[in-house]
């Protein structure tokens, strides 16, 4: 397992935020090399690296790029998803604030591979400081002629809506509309922003790309598991002794990661862990010997999602934790699909009355039934992301919920 910092190598070097400082340790060297490569060769390298999207869905990045229609006559767009909003996740904030040129270099290389001349960076509206740092880096890159000669970049600020992290909601928002997700297909790679083929990638995903070009696809693939290359930035918070961003190989286990973050705080005894952001099904203390790659967590019945790890010690009330998340889903549903719009509000009210001590005997089964019926029926994956917690928290900790319901 690697401990060499790759994505986070500049985090403790404030100078790296400037172009000169970034160049000091080889920055933009990968871009120089990529300019000597055919776009198809870049794409092949990214495919061979086994890079999987780090925004949530874990889709193979090279394969996504290859979906851009060959010979498309009009423009192709590159969109960076910097709308970080998944509860428990904060790694893109670190990347934007501490290594902004790494993202610009990744964009340059990706844009060459997909033959895009215009990139958008959609930064959540609340991220004012990260936006300032990143925007300054973009202006520096323009002044140095890195941008503006083949690739233009528009830094776009969101206005507060979790659903704009979903790629088609993000595209709607970028187009100046409310952030309603769109029915797929067509996928953005075929018909995306402003009706043109569009690749949406997460900040961290694109930050991997320069390293793949500089050090080779085989090296990158070798860092991870058979089906996922590279390292990953795990955001660890909740009841751990040293919360923070930890970059390690995706083959680390959840148990090892918690140890890396100083171990369980509070009572010191683990109760449960959210392994991949608020929308990931919860794992019990007995289920943490899983590898933290996309397929490892899928096999464990959860998901790595955005790799936001929230640790809960024995003193945490699971019904209360679900209440907090249920409030979140009720608030953030975009309201477009009936199951999502209606169930998120209804389930929030039921969990609320259970936690308040007025729950009804049938409530738990009603929640499970409502959640199961709606799963997979909606326009976007938001609702499935809510169903995972509803079901797993209740199934795995049912006695704790039942104890709150008057006999």
């Amino acid at each position, binding site marked *: 397992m690697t401990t060499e910092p790759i994505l986070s190598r500049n985090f403790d070097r404030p100078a790296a935020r400037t172009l000169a400082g970034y160049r000091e340790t080889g920055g933009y060297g990968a871009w120089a090399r990529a300019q000597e490569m055919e776009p198809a060769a870049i794409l092949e390298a990214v495919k061979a690296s086994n890079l999987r999207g780090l925004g949530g869905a874990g889709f193979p990045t090279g394969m996504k790029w290859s979906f851009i229609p060959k010979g498309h006559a009009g423009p192709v767009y590159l969109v960076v998803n910097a709308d970080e909003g998944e509860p428990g996740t904060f790694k893109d904030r670190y990347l934007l604030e501490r290594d902004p040129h790494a993202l610009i270099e990744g964009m340059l290389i990706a844009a060459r591979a997909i033959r895009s001349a215009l990139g958008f960076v959609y930064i959540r509206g609340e991220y004012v400081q990260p936006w300032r740092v990143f925007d300054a880096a973009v202006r520096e890159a323009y002044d140095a002629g890195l941008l503006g000669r083949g690739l233009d970049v528009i830094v776009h600020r969101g206005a507060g809506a979790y659903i704009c992290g979903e790629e088609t909601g993000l595209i709607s928002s*970028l187009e100046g509309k409310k*952030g309603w997700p769109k029915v797929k297909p067509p996928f953005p790679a075929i018909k995306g922003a402003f009706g043109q083929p569009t690749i949406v990638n997460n900040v961290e995903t694109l930050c991997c790309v320069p390293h793949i070009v500089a050090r080779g696809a085989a090296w990158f693939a070798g860092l991870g598991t058979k089906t996922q290359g590279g390292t990953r930035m795990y955001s660890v918070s*909740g009841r751990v002794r040293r919360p923070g961003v930890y970059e390690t190989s995706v083959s680390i286990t959840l148990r090892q990661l918690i140890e890396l973050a100083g171990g369980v705080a509070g009572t010191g005894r683990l109760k449960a862990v959210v392994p991949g952001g*608020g929308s990931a099904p919860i794992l019990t203390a007995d289920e943490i010997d899983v590898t933290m790659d996309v397929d490892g967590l899928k096999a464990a019945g959860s998901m790595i999602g955005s790799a*936001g790890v929230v640790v809960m010690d024995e003193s945490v009330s699971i019904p*209360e934790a679900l209440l*907090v998340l249920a409030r979140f889903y009720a*608030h953030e549903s975009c309201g477009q699909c009936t199951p999502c719009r209606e169930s998120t509000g209804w389930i929030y009210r039921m969990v609320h009355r259970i936690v308040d001590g007025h729950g009804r005997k049938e409530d738990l089964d009603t929640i499970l039934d409502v959640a199961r019926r709606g799963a997979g029926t909606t326009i976007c994956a938001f609702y499935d992301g809510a169903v995972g917690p509803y079901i797993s928290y209740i199934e795995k900790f049912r006695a704790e919920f039942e104890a709150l319901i008057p006999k």
Partner: protein
Amino acid sequence: MSAAVAFSPEQLAEVRRLQALYPDRRGALLPVLHMAQDTFGWISLDVEAYVAGLFDLSPAHVHEVVTFYTLYFRQPKGRHVVAVCHNLSCHLAGAPDILRHVRERLGIDVGETSDDGRVTLQSVECLCACEAAPMMQVDDRYELHLTPETVDRILEELR
């Protein structure tokens, strides 16, 4: 429409620059609404109608956009906005106590603005600084690792 709702010539030039930047000028709607809020303080129906005019959109289209996003204010806000995160990691780190403390100190509830117009209070979803929970956003700044004492100091400094 009230006469006060109008951008300066420089701002209008900026609107045109933004509109030209995007493949379709409507892409500039969110940035222009940010500008409008910075200029007029909040997004009234008059502001919506004014912005709609700049984009040749119906005011209804602008209204549905403004009402979709939490960062656009549809009523006057205080000189400062305090947004306490109440999502999972902050909750586990004591956000309910922090929020109660802030409410008591300011003497207002979530969604309200203090009588002197100094502060608007919100409780918000994950601001993605969970490693430093509990936390809140004060205007442009993230305030991290909150305790009742640091909250007092931060609120004190807001004028």
